């Protein structure tokens, strides 16, 4: 195999995992824009996506499409419960307190998953066979195409939602300014609830499409969450195109680093990038520097 072909292969596989990072990063951005907090349970949503799908599809043997939507609904419901329960009931609305609540929720979900699903790693069969396709001499797993395709669909649908529908516009208004959104009669509370629910759904999608490649277990949430967060920071925190770009970029960098340098420290790279971005350009690749008002 020539070097350039190898490189092409690494980039392809990087784009595949990068797509799921992008979905996780969008989830982070949605909640950040609505509430200003970092949702530490985001990675747990992804883990739950894989777990529910295993149950619905492999254990209960429901048809794939039904299992897919049931999973998305279930995890969206978890996101909804997280907002309706702890986040809304919180006595203090200080950001750091809310962030710690999501940390607690994340460990709690992890603990519950361990009890219900056990500690063993689980996997899903690929959506359509395992015979690799050949694209420009590089081999692609069909699952990679599914991942890429579904991510594109989700991003396009979200784009439509935020640009064209009333509810999406209302969410953007809340992100721009909570107070002025409230003054124009937008139900801010409901928009926050919606952002958690949507994040849950996005996490579920990421978990479902990723599990056939990476397998899942009760403790993968932290790592996935961390990578999604790094991707969001890399692209510019809170920005949708930034989240997508950051996710893909992180996926490719990670794949190149593990292919060309060392695969053992692959997981360390995301954090290194995170620190570098915070060091040199905290607003991210696509972010604009923002002034803090006093």
């Amino acid at each position, binding site marked *: 195999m020539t070097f350039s072909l190898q490189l092409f292969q690494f980039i392809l596989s990087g784009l595949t995992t990068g797509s799921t990072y992008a979905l996780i990063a969008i989830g982070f951005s949605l909640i950040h824009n609505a509430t200003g907090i970092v949702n*530490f349970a985001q990675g747990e949503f992804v883990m739950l996506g894989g777990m529910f799908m295993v149950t619905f599809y492999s254990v209960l043997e429901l048809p794939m499409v039904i299992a897919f939507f049931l999973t998305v609904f279930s995890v969206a419901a978890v996101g909804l419960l997280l907002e309706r329960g702890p986040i809304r*009931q919180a006595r203090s609305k200080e950001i*750091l307190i809310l962030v710690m609540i999501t940390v607690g929720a994340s460990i709690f979900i992890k603990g519950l998953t361990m009890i219900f699903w056990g500690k063993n790693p689980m996997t899903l069969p690929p959506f359509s066979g395992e015979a690799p396709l050949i694209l420009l001499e590089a081999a692609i797993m069909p699952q990679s195409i599914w991942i890429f395709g579904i991510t594109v669909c989700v991003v396009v649908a979200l784009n439509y939602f935020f640009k064209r529908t009333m509810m999406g516009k209302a969410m953007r208004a809340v992100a721009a300014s909570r107070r002025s959104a409230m003054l124009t009669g937008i139900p801010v509370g409901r928009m926050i609830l919606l952002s958690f629910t949507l994040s849950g759904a996005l996490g579920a999608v990421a978990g479902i499409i990723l599990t056939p490649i990476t397998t899942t277990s009760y403790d993968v949430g932290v790592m996935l969450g961390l990578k999604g967060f*790094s991707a969001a920071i890399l692209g510019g925190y809170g920005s949708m195109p930034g989240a997508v770009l950051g996710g893909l970029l992180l996926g490719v960098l990670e794949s190149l680093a593990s292919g060309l340098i060392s695969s053992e420290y692959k997981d360390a790279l995301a954090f290194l990038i995170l620190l570098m971005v*915070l060091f040199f350009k*905290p607003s991210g690749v696509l972010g604009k520097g923002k002034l803090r008002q006093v």
Partner: protein
Amino acid sequence: MEKKNKIYLLIYAFIILILPIFLSNNYYLMVLNVAALNIIVVIGLNLLTGYAGQISLGHAAFFGLGAYLSAIFTAAFHFPVWPTMMIAMFITGIVAYVIAIPTLKLEGHYLVMATLGFNVIVYIIMIQLDSVTGGPSGFAGIPRLQIGGFIFNSDRRIYYLFWAVSFGVLLLSLNLIRSRVGRALAALSHNEIAAKCSGIDTETYKINIFVISAVLTSLAGSLYAHYITFISPGTFSIFYSIQVVTMVLVGGMGSLWGSIFGAVLLTLLPEFLHSVKEYNVLIYGLVLMVIMVFFPQGLFPGILEVFGQRKKGER
């Protein structure tokens, strides 16, 4: 206030001194020794959380850095134990400083994420760098502590050493928060912008307190390594970071006495509840969530407040 603290300190020292007389079982002593180390970590973390308003989810990594640096230098290179501990604290301090510079300039939750990520990285390195760290199977044969010819080879000897150190850390911290630095930190946690406007260099203070907190944690880690003489990566996973944060929150942000209460309670409790060890993760998550939702200032102060209100109501 100062007089009250002095009385508390005397009572506290007295309890520490006489407690081992009633404990014949070495197991209880061992649990208490671990509690003393946790107190050091929790006090350090509370300086950061309660006084600078920042939360770190990476203290297990600093604890691990202290432990592994001490272990590697003393066991593999035969460095003397006590100076090595200082070196470990110094290196950990520098690492903390490097993390603190970019993240503490930003809002609080960046530090939470960055420290969490740092913890994951350190954990990966501990496992992957097995030629140095022993990998997942751990690092054995760490020398015991000794002063002159006196070796700390029993739980009882260690008890007095560790509790003396943790008492010293408490004294230093109580003094620190009553100093100019402490008042600056209090102002900063109350309202950062107001503090800045009154001439407090909030960034430097935040970075410094983060480094101090990491150094104290490194000290506890070194002591742990020389006490147990065997360390493995599992001890230094994120779960420990979350445990110590929960201890701070149980005791109350900004209350050093509360920290002691939180650390001792949450160290002893799991030992008495052996049957639920499987649910440890679940319980910690739930406790953390419930405290943050209902008692954002911490469980201990929250309960005291509830009692206070009830008394007022009765009158």
